[in-house]
């Protein structure tokens, strides 16, 4: 399992934290010591055999890894290709998010931190953070946009039951972007004893790289499992949804340097890319700086960050991780914009065909399948990043 944490030779982050022209650490001086402490220690901590042993053990015994790679026969038949689902929805807490929070809580412990702060959109990262804080006995504060607190109420209750304090972010659009602002402000106010567990491959270096490494277990397992099932390690396509892009980064990681594998990222088009109510960052954004990194972000001509919209709280973010901006920039990734309606339909479709109710975020990945021009010999792996229980109130409006 050691290879999970080994850097890739290209598409890897530079020592200054850049992926091509994206990345870096655009942070106020108030955060410099914290981020620098993390930058100087994360690779060393993660390479420590004792850390590795504890991380792998928890992934196995607590998270439930490896997660299955499931051949979705009826879906395959429908789309006319061989489709495997990487079942991250079967992770403890119901999504891939916990791969990262397990890793980061172990890093936080080794840095001597006493308190954890996090942001959350759909609540999945908040729940995954609250979970590992309960496991390790650390205080946990989660910022969540007040609009998201309403539309993801069950996750708010779960976090509270796990002992976390959930604080509403009431500024701006009151969604993920604003929750992230508040978590960063909290970190500025509590720099010494607090670790900020960012939930996606966003933020200042080293976060995008650290989170990608923790999530890279997804593609490591895909390779092994696909080989065991088919005799080949590389599928033709890996498909994942991208808000900030952590499940996509994990699913792509070990295929980044395999040009025969097309990497397909799906963004939330909301009511339509040109509707003014969208979160399709690469379609609508341009290079800029948000939450500590240079990336592609949705913004006005004057450089003010645009309020995104998606039916999915986890994709409702105006930027993407710098790695994904680089994949888009270089043409290494194919980016699709999926509307609310297409995603909902794909969610119902998978439920009825395979008996799996996906998170609405994940449904955006599934919705790309009919649009990819697949042929019968194609082997496709879709990262089934999360389960849909949290979204039932949204899905039920379409029943």
């Amino acid at each position, binding site marked *: 399992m050691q290879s999970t944490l080994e850097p890739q030779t290209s598409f890897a982050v530079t020592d200054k934290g850049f992926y091509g022209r994206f990345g870096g650490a655009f942070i106020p*001086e108030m955060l410099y010591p914290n981020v620098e402490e993390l930058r100087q220690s994360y690779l060393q901590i993660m390479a420590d055999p004792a850390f590795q042993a504890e991380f792998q053990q928890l992934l196995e015994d607590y998270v439930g890894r490896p997660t299955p790679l499931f051949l979705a026969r009826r879906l395959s038949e429908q789309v006319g290709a061989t489709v495997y689902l990487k079942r991250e929805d079967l992770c403890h807490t119901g999504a891939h998010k916990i791969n990262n929070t397990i890793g980061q809580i172990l890093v936080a412990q080794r840095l001597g931190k006493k308190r954890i702060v996090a942001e959350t959109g759909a609540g999945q990262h908040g729940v995954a953070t609250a979970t590992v804080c309960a496991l390790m006995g650390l205080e946990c504060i989660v910022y969540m946009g007040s609009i998201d607190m309403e539309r993801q109420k069950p996750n708010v209750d779960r976090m509270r039951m796990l002992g976390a304090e959930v604080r509403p972010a009431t500024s701006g659009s009151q969604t993920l972007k604003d929750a992230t602002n508040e978590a960063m402000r909290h970190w500025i*106010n509590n720099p010494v004893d607090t670790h900020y567990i960012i939930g996606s491959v966003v933020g200042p270096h080293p976060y995008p790289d650290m989170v990608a490494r923790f999530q890279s277990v997804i593609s490591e397992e895909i390779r092994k499992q696909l080989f065991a099932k088919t005799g080949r390690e590389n599928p033709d396509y890996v498909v994942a949804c991208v808000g900030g892009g952590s499940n996509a980064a994990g699913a792509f990681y070990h295929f980044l340097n395999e040009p025969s594998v097309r990497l397909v990222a799906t963004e939330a088009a909301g009511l339509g890319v040109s509707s003014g109510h969208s979160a399709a960052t690469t379609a609508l954004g341009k290079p800029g700086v948000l939450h500590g990194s240079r990336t592609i972000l949705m913004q006005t001509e004057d*450089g003010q*960050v645009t309020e995104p919209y998606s039916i999915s709280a986890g994709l409702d973010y105006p930027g993407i991780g710098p790695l994904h901006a680089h994949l888009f920039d270089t043409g290494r990734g194919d980016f699709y914009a999926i509307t609310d309606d297409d995603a909902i339909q794909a969610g119902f479709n998978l439920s009825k065909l395979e008996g799996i109710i996906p998170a609405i975020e994940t449904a955006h990945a599934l919705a790309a399948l009919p649009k990819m021009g697949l042929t019968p010999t194609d082997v496709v792996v879709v990262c089934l990043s999360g389960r849909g229980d949290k979204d039932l109130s949204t899905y039920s409006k379409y029943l």
Partner: protein
Amino acid sequence: MTSSITQNRITDLFAQKSDRLLNVYFTAGFPNLDDTLTVLRGLQAAGVDLVEIGMPYSDPVADGETIQQSNGKALENGMSLKTLFAQLASCRQEITVPILLMGYVNPVLQFGVENFCQQCRAVGVDGVILPDLPLDLFLAEYADIFRAYGILNVNLITPQTSDERIRHIDAESDGFIYMVSSASITGSTKGISEPMRAYFDRIRAMQLRNPRLIGFGINDHETFDTACQYANGAIVGSAFIRHLQDHGTSPESIRAFVGTIRS
């Protein structure tokens, strides 16, 4: 040391005056779009030593609620860098006090860094504070442009900044060093604690080549006075924004505010 800007209203000011300097921050286009010059005139008439004009941004992560809200209101009013430079176009016919622009890096990047520096020069802006543009990135990518137009880049230090890094920042800074008073976002009203005094003392003892102004949490005469015991002066922001909101932008009102800070 790459710095080379020696002649500028800010450096001139510090050459003439080295203590009890008062720098006041306000947000451009707040409370109303056309208030920028009114407030600027009011501050000059009230005798402040420097002014810091906030360039409003949608996501000001280093700022507390007061400045966040003034940024939001200014954007609602239609403020932009283009509008701000238009408002400041002929201000130097009457405004002699040094002017800094303070804000976040993304709007400046979208405006174009060279275009931005050129406009600063054209309207008579002397320095810029961009908290989320770290020094190493500034030096690598933008320092030459700033220098070519004679615009100072003011850097921040905090209680957590290491001595080594403070020395580096001091070597690479011109004008003054912005000492963030405590581990906090703007707008604190908790006063000045013993650990803050110890930090102020530590920095004073380092005998930096640049003068120092203390900001964040300076909101009344007492905090201003204390800050001035340890540095060359202090910066007031959120308290002034609250004053503008509650008491308006008249010269008398601004004079009264500055009066309460100074004495």
